[in-house]
């Protein structure tokens, strides 16, 4: 299934700002599990776009608007085709072989340590969580298949967090969501990540979109960004776990950016001279079931 995505962000300032630099992590990931047939970024005011691939493998597009302005609009238009129809389509290594597999993977690719060692307010150390949660956290032993432990974890999460739109902000610390007993998709992903990291298994935060089911996909459906986690599975590579919906990420999931937590994978980051904005950014995201008329990104930029 191919999707056309439009992701528009409008920033409005009560007083004009200038020397405005912006970095965007909006171009969907282009890898074995997803093909980007085309994508482009538009901005208003317009600026010369530069780009690079960051250390997590995300494509970053950036630009600056120097003269004073009171409004900045950025828009991504992309034509993507998620390919993972069946997320179970792999044979995980037997539990006995996993320890050695992880040892080798971490040795050959030291940057994976970012996904095991990172701790922050959003993905804190497990000690901080156990102090707040009065029930046992799911454990993982070397005798248990990793996938089984991960499913147990996903089923356990709703006993700690109830999904409640607006319960938390973008960068709310996990501990606050836990105390409130409610959160949104980031909090579900963060809790999942926090527990998996305590097992020493590489896990990363994913920012992206979840397309509506085919029967509900209108000509143009309005959606919000979604957050889930990807775990490095011996024999399976990076597999997406959506703790909010207790699902493995299939071809309705469109990953855009990954990182240690939501800061690394933030869709838009900016710096400007002038007063702080009075209003929150206004974001419109639409997904439709048909891609057309876009140029594919240069081959060498594809990860």
């Amino acid at each position, binding site marked *: 299934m191919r999707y056309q995505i439009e992701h528009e962000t409008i920033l409005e300032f009560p007083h004009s700002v200038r*020397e405005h*630099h912006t*970095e965007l992590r909006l171009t969907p990931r282009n890898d074995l599990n997803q093909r980007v047939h085309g994508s482009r970024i538009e901005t208003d005011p317009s*600026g*010369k776009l*530069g780009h*690079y*691939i*960051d*250390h997590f493998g995300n494509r970053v597009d*950036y630009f*600056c608007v*120097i003269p004073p302005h009171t409004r900045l609009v950025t828009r991504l238009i992309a034509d993507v085709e998620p390919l993972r129809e069946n997320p179970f389509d792999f044979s995980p290594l037997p539990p006995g072989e996993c320890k050695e597999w992880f040892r080798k993977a*971490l*040795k*050959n690719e*030291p*940057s994976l*340590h*970012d996904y095991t*060692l*990172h701790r922050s307010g959003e993905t804190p150390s497990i000690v901080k969580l156990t102090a707040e949660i009065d029930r046992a956290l799911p454990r993982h032993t070397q005798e248990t298949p990793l996938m089984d432990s991960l499913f147990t974890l996903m089923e356990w999460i709703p006993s700690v967090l109830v999904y409640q739109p607006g319960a938390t902000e973008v960068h709310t610390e996990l501990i606050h969501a836990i105390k409130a007993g409610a959160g949104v998709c980031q909090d579900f992903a963060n809790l999942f990540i926090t527990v998996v990291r305590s097992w020493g298994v590489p896990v990363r935060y994913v920012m992206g979109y979840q397309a509506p089911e085919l029967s509900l996909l209108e000509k143009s459906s309005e959606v919000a960004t979604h957050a889930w986690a990807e775990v490095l599975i011996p024999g399976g590579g990076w597999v997406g776990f959506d703790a909010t919906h207790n699902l493995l990420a299939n071809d309705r999931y469109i990953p855009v950016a990954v990182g240690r937590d939501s800061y690394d994978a933030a869709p838009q*980051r*900016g*710096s*400007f*001279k002038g007063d702080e904005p009075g209003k929150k950014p206004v974001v419109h995201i639409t997904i439709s079931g048909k891609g057309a008329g876009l140029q594919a990104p240069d081959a060498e930029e594809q990860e």
Partner: protein
Amino acid sequence: MNNHNGSSGNKPRISFHEFYDDDFTPRAHYRPLWDHIRATGQNSLEVKAHESQLALQTEGVTFTVYGESDEGIERIWPFDLIPRIITAMEWEKIESGLKQRVKALNLFLNDLYTDQKIIKDGVIPPELIYQGKDFRREIMGITPPQGIYTHISGIDLIRAEDGEYLILEDNLRTPSGVSYMIENRVIERRIMPEFFDKYRVRRVDHYPALLLDALRSLSPRGKDNAEVVVLTPGVYNSAYFEHTFLAKEMGVELAEGRDMVTINDIVYLKTTTGLQRVDVIYRRIDDDFLDPLIFRSDSTLGIAGVINAWRAGNVALVNAPGSGIADDKAVYPYVPDIIRYYLGQQPILKNVPTYQMTNQQDREYVFDNMEGMVIKAVSESGGYGMLMGPASTPQLRREFVDKVLENPRNYIAQPVVYLSRHICYMDGELEARHLDLRPFVIYGEDIQVVPGGLTRVALRKGSLVVNSSQGGGSKDTWVLSE
């Protein structure tokens, strides 16, 4: 361990005396100086000391000391008349040891931010790097010109009880003190010209010229077309004097972040005649504050977009972002291995023995012997975040135990080394004080160690803390040419 300090009433260990031999006669290289002082008498020293104070005041050679709560006090740079003298033979070893170390540390940084072979080969534990506050993953994959990161290094040396020079710490971020090295020489020459008749002292005053040459050589538009800027956090920085000094001596602009702007990957200085392209930024602000788009978003000291301009190869940043991981004090114990790994050589200058707080055995040993230890926070410098065991109170030691247990990666410990002593002219008397040495290394087209350095003196009797930010003093440092 059996470390004691003078104030507790125990007999102190004997530290090396730079000036006197074991039989209390001056060492051979100090004899001409000593004869001169004896001939002119101590009264003349009193007059000279007064003159040097006036000169420092007139020149405006100052240093700002920040306490826990106050706003900072600007002080006249404390200077001692009696020079420290290093023989040509001693210097030869120091010079080759520092060149070796700086070369290896730059190879290490280049490797860390590209292939990470040293981690893959199991020489450096990955946790050490990935849990390091100053590992900048944001610049992964960018190679600065010639793969050089630390164009300016200030490496602290001390002399152990047997007189051997040891590396105490590497300063690879924005090491300061070089302006005082030069000012000390200017004052010494003016006040004590007769001292210089008796020795062949190697010059240090060409440092700004060496630095400018190294900076220009990094210009993306070529050496002959290099616009160089010194980036300062501003007047409230304790090293602001040095920032103005170096800009003036090199004849380049001194600017703050707000004086510059990045437009489409090119950095410009805002001048009265319009925007002027900048090629090389000698930045005296930390990575954290360098670019609010990439690092700390609340920084108002940096230049938004400068990292992407650097990534594009349109501007040189000196020292390169990310250098701090190589002077992280928890990485320091690995530097001898780093030298062996990249150069296949034994380290010429040794480290001070260091205990790692992430290692349980080391940690317990240190907790049992805290009075003989120095405990240091790994990412701090200038003597901040440090416990000096011999001078510590039981309560302070308990606080440090808690701090270490809270975050073991953040601390290391070293047995107290009784720094070497030297005579100083203090209030009419010649008294011994402990000191260290910070030579400066410039890595431009090749590696050069400026023959001299900043000798820092612990002004308080018996104290082992020489940091200028902790009220240390200084001496002119002479390296003899023969």
